[in-house]
């Protein structure tokens, strides 16, 4: 490659010597600047073209490896779950079997190698939606408090605390939930639910352990709170101040200002944050495994034991002896993989739609 000098159009202000500091300052603030003409020129006349090539190729390889990892994951999951896919097809996700002995419908029968993911899909959906119902109002309340009301002294430490909440590993949530939260719910909250709402059939009094969907939902809610609240906070801060001032100038109270000026503008981003929280809840494993009870059954009562897609994999995979059993668990994993990819992609698009105008703050 010969070094041909390209036609360079250098815009005038770039060459002016006055206040270079401010110049660079401005460039920092507007991060994604196009590669300048100067740089292109300097690159083209470099005499170490070979090493540069190699370096470039190495970096491209790193980037490509990210692709190939995701592709490899998908490929291995598809290949390893072939056995159950061939045997059950799509029925794996909605059919049930009749137990030859009790004549009752069963779903998960490793002994006779009959598998269906229905109870796990049910468990994942129920626990995740319970978590969302509990977490969303709290997360939005926290975000409102932090962005609109909180005195400055408090907002730093509170933001740090929620950041910490996101950094606690799920196994520690699990240990705490198993030893502290479950007994608390069992002895003090569940009796109230049974007495007050028992007539709906959703809270029945037949599970003395305290494990089950409600426990899983509560611990999931605690775990997804930080992610929803920090994203909500991010999109709420992205709403321009003029919006707030305009609504206030019309004589609105603070709540009316938040409702009309902030929440209405940020709603798409908030929905994105909620979906991202849902994505996390769907795939959460350890804490759920420790408190959901791990029985592959479907009950109407939310207080009964259940199992989620992630929990059944964590619980049974090392003990699975037959290839079919292992394949069934990997197929559940594949389903989880696909669902979380879709959920996360939707969330990314929604959040991006709101915050694209402002520099990203949280990551």
């Amino acid at each position, binding site marked *: 490659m010969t070094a041909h000098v390209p036609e360079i159009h250098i815009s005038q202000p770039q060459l002016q010597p006055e206040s270079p500091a401010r110049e660079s300052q401005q460039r920092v603030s507007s991060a994604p600047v196009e590669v300048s003409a100067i740089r292109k020129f300097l690159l083209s006349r470099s*005499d170490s073209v070979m090493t540069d090539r190699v370096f470039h190729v190495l970096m491209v390889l*790193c980037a490509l*490896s990210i692709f190939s990892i995701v592709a490899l994951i998908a490929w291995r999951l598809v290949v390893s779950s072939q056995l159950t896919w061939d045997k059950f097809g799509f029925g794996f996700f909605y059919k049930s079997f009749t137990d030859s002995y009790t004549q009752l419908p069963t779903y998960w029968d490793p002994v006779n190698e009959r598998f269906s993911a229905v109870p796990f899909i049910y468990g994942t959906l129920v626990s995740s939606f319970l978590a969302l119902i509990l977490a969303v109002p709290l997360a939005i309340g926290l975000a409102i408090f932090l962005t609109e009301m909180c005195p400055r002294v408090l907002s730093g430490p509170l933001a740090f605390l929620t950041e910490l*909440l996101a950094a606690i590993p799920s196994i520690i949530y*699990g240990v705490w939930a198993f030893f502290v939260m479950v007994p608390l719910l069992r002895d003090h909250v569940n009796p109230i639910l049974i007495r007050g709402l028992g007539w709906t059939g959703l809270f029945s009094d037949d599970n003395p352990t305290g494990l089950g969907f409600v426990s899983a939902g509560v611990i999931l809610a*605690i775990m997804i709170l930080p992610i929803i609240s920090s994203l909500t906070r991010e999109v709420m801060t992205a709403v321009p101040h003029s919006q707030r001032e305009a609504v206030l100038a019309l004589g609105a109270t603070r709540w009316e200002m938040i409702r009309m000026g902030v929440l209405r503008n940020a709603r798409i981003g908030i929905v994105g944050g909620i979906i991202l929280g849902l994505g996390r809840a769907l795939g959460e494993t350890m804490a759920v495994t420790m408190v959901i009870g791990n029985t592959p059954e479907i009950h109407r009562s939310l207080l009964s034991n259940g199992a989620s897609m992630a929990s059944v994999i964590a619980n049974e995979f090392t003990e699975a002896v037959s290839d079919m059993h292992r394949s069934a668990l990997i197929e559940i994993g594949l389903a989880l993989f696909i669902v979380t990819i879709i959920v996360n992609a939707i969330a990314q698009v929604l959040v991006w739609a709101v915050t694209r105008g402002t520099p990203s703050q949280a990551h």
Partner: protein
Amino acid sequence: MSAETFKFRTRMRTLTDSAVTALSILATVLVVAPLVAIFAYLVFKGASSLNLDFFTKIPKPEGESGGGMANAIVGSGILLGVASLLGVPIGIGGGIFLAEFGRGTKFANAVRFTADVLNGVPSIVMGLAVYSLVVVQQKTFSAFAGGVALGIMMIPTVCRTTEEMLLMVPHAVREAALGLGVPNWRSVLSITVKTASPGIITGCMLAFARVAGETAPLLFTALGNSFMSTSLNHPIEALPLQIYIFANSPYDDQHRLAWAGSLVLIVLIVLAVSLVRYVTSRGVLKGAS
């Protein structure tokens, strides 16, 4: 509208406003409460069972009292070492590509999206994938497989932080280096990356803290091992795995060890997160944490 209704409405509006204020304060309290409760229990339960044995002894057989988690601590160290060797170079390389070479191209956008996808893959699924990628081929559960699983999970975080940090380095710095005749690869490595290095290290530490507590991907890759092992080709214990096993056991003594292990784990993670926060708030690279 009569004056009466106007007054009434105004009062209702102020009332709603105060009610919402109270509700959001209540929400904040409800969010902070579990955090405080978790820390209180960890310190209360964990500290009382933390002693020298915890760090120097391996677990006793079930039902016997005493013992520690030395093997799990060593195992976690080895796993995290393997993970960092795999995850950090690839992550930083990907970040350099995104910031320096591929900016604005379709390929770079696709890589960025894939990194976000990889970030959202549930950790248990990562465990399954590495099981069939590494464990099945190797025909044994191993520390190496566990390290690979954790390393893959580090890549997206490292990659995205590196990109963000590199984007904050002013163009003038790059142009100055190139203008002095420094080749591009040298300018990227010793000028741009070096300038952004506090931020990049921050990203690596965040990724490190995140995978340090991961249990699910280790369940069927590293498997666990009740004896001291330092071999990459054998099953190995990790702190979170051991906590999981002990918490599920019926013995009080092992529960105590589980609490102590959780305390050690959380102290490590809080230290890492606080350090990151301290470094990012010192103004070196403010605004991008």
